[in-house]
């Protein structure tokens, strides 16, 4: 520490005199008519009901790593693929189609926990999910669903591989059928629960769309699964064409729902980076595959197959972008201080209104 004395500002005679006058007026009449003194550093950053607490966000943004949107994509596709595989298995569809759908599900069942563990940081942390089952926590429901899904799909895949290599046998048939039977409800759960997971949170863009999200995510998962199968060479299956068309049409409808309504909570889906990703992801999930699939109906055999592979590729990329977009929208939504404080959407925080104070670092605390 230096030994220099603290230097006080020079008294300013005219300001002091004016202050005296103002005080005197206040004393006599109880109020002041003249404009007040402008203190050093004024205007002060302001916290108020209209401007919030300096615009510092109330809510914490999601702290998930980029593995989580990737998991939503992989888990959604795997869940839908398992349903396709199981139904195809019981209906007696082409065996190669059933097998490839099962492989997608099995690959997803392996990749998904790996992604979740990468997000948690340490493998043993995933075991914490297995301590309890909490129906009121979508995260707990999802963890158990994923565990069950992995077991069911690997059982069916294992039995299928053994059957192909060593021929059919009674125990293998039981294992395969049981695996596929369990994979239906678990696959349906895996493809839809992530919508509830982010919907039942404090983040406005998520919880205000909680009724849409599971349907939206299920359609996204299905279109990704169908797209992957078409890319794997099943671009002539009429069943897949119907499923892909249904999912794409639902995504068109979801796009209209997002773009056609004016709600503040939808803003992160329309503006900024998250808005751009939402729109590109939406176009690749809905209108583009729909158009390509429609075109394929009127094209020749080989041309139709190629158009459907393009539709499938578009849907796969669209599904991935859609998951990334929703998570980024959640971050943007949490950083908007207006929603949870129920302040009008056009309200500006003090620092927003005074960009000359931008050098003041926005407090970040995580």
């Amino acid at each position, binding site marked *: 520490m230096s030994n220099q004395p603290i230097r006080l500002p020079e008294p300013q005679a005219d300001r002091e005199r004016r*202050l005296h006058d*103002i*005080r005197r007026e*206040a004393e006599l009449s109880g109020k*002041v008519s003249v404009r*007040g*003194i402008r203190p*050093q550093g004024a205007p*002060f*950053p*302001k*916290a*108020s*009901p209209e401007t*919030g*607490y*300096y615009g*510092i966000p*109330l*809510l*914490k943004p999601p*702290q998930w790593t980029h593995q989580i949107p990737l998991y939503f994509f992989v888990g959604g596709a795997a869940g839908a693929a398992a*349903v396709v595989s199981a139904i195809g298995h019981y209906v*007696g*569809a082409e065996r190669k189609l059933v097998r490839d759908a099962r492989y997608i599900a099995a690959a997803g069942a392996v990749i998904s926990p790996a992604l979740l563990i990468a*997000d948690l*940081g340490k493998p043993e942390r*995933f*075991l*914490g*999910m297995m*301590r309890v089952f909490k129906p*009121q*926590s*979508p995260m*707990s429901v999802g963890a158990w669903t994923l565990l069950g899904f992995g077991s069911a799909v690997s059982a069916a895949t294992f039995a299928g591989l053994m059957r192909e290599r060593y021929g059919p046998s009674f125990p293998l048939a039981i294992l395969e059928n049981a695996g596929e039977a369990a994979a239906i409800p678990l696959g*349906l759960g895996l*493809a*839809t629960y992530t*919508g*509830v997971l982010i919907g*039942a*949170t*404090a983040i406005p863009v998520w919880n205000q769309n*909680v009724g849409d999200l*599971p349907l939206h995510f*299920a359609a996204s998962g299905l279109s990704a699964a169908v797209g992957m199968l078409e890319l794997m060479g099943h671009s002539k*299956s*009429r069943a*897949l064409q*119907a499923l892909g068309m249904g999912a794409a049409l639902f995504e068109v409808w979801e796009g209209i729902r997002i773009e056609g309504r004016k709600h503040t909570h939808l803003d992160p889906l329309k503006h900024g980076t998250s808005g751009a990703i939402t729109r590109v992801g939406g176009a690749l999930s809905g209108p583009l595959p729909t158009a390509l699939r429609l075109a394929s109906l009127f094209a020749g055999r080989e041309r139709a197959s190629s158009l459907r592979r393009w539709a499938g590729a578009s849907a796969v990329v669209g599904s991935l972008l859609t998951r990334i977009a929703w998570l980024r929208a959640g971050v943007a939504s*949490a950083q908007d*201080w207006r929603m*949870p*404080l*129920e302040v009008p959407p056009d309200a500006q925080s003090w620092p927003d209104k005074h960009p000359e104070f931008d050098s*003041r*670092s926005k*407090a970040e605390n*995580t």
Partner: protein
Amino acid sequence: MSTTAFLTDSTLCIGCKACEVACKEWNHVGEDGLEWSGYSYDNTGAVGASTWRHVKFVEEPPTPGIGGNAGDQASWVFSSDVCKHCEVAGCLEACPTGAIVRTEFGGVFVQPDVCNGCAYCVVACPFGVVAKNREDGRAFKCTFCYDRQKVGLEPACAKACPTESIKFGEINQLRAEAQQRVQVLQDRGMDDATFYDPTHTSVQGTHAMFILRGDPRTYNLPPNPEVPTTYLRKGWTSAALAAGLLLGGTLLAFLTDGARDAQ
């Protein structure tokens, strides 16, 4: 054992941040926010993984002549923020591992040896309190000094508060005290004195209540905080509908498709 609570009276707070320091010292919470945020004398801006008590500075331009304010000094209201320890807590409901529990004192406690760092509580908190420490990987927040309460001591922040702005005691007693205090303040002419305890929403009240001047939104306190579990019914209904459509659609698609393997 009776349930306990904090009552933080912003009209008594002098902004000394002794509560922040006492909390960090007792709980061994790492240093953060030695830099000024630029918003009055606030350092950290909000509570988080490494800030369990946070003094908010609401600064206003001076009203010269009134109360003898000097012309070049701002007028202030300070309020020490903390985890609200909700009666129905979003973080507790969301936690998939059971790491977050309700203690016998009514507080909400994250067991650090159980937390697996899934960060779902972070998005489930309507007050933006609990956060994941990125280095450690687990979630942290105010423990309501569970260890101190266990041996009959009051929480470190309340103990350190030099003006008794942070009061600690039995919850119903504090609620009654708060009503009286607001009445006293209003009688003294502070017409804007209010009591913040959101019992009217799904949070059903908190174990950290506040006496404030003016609108709670000035202090980043939400007027209507909701526990995210209120969205579950709508979400699972939609999921059931989605599952039905997915199952029915797939069945229909394969049944109408003639392609079969000859068995």
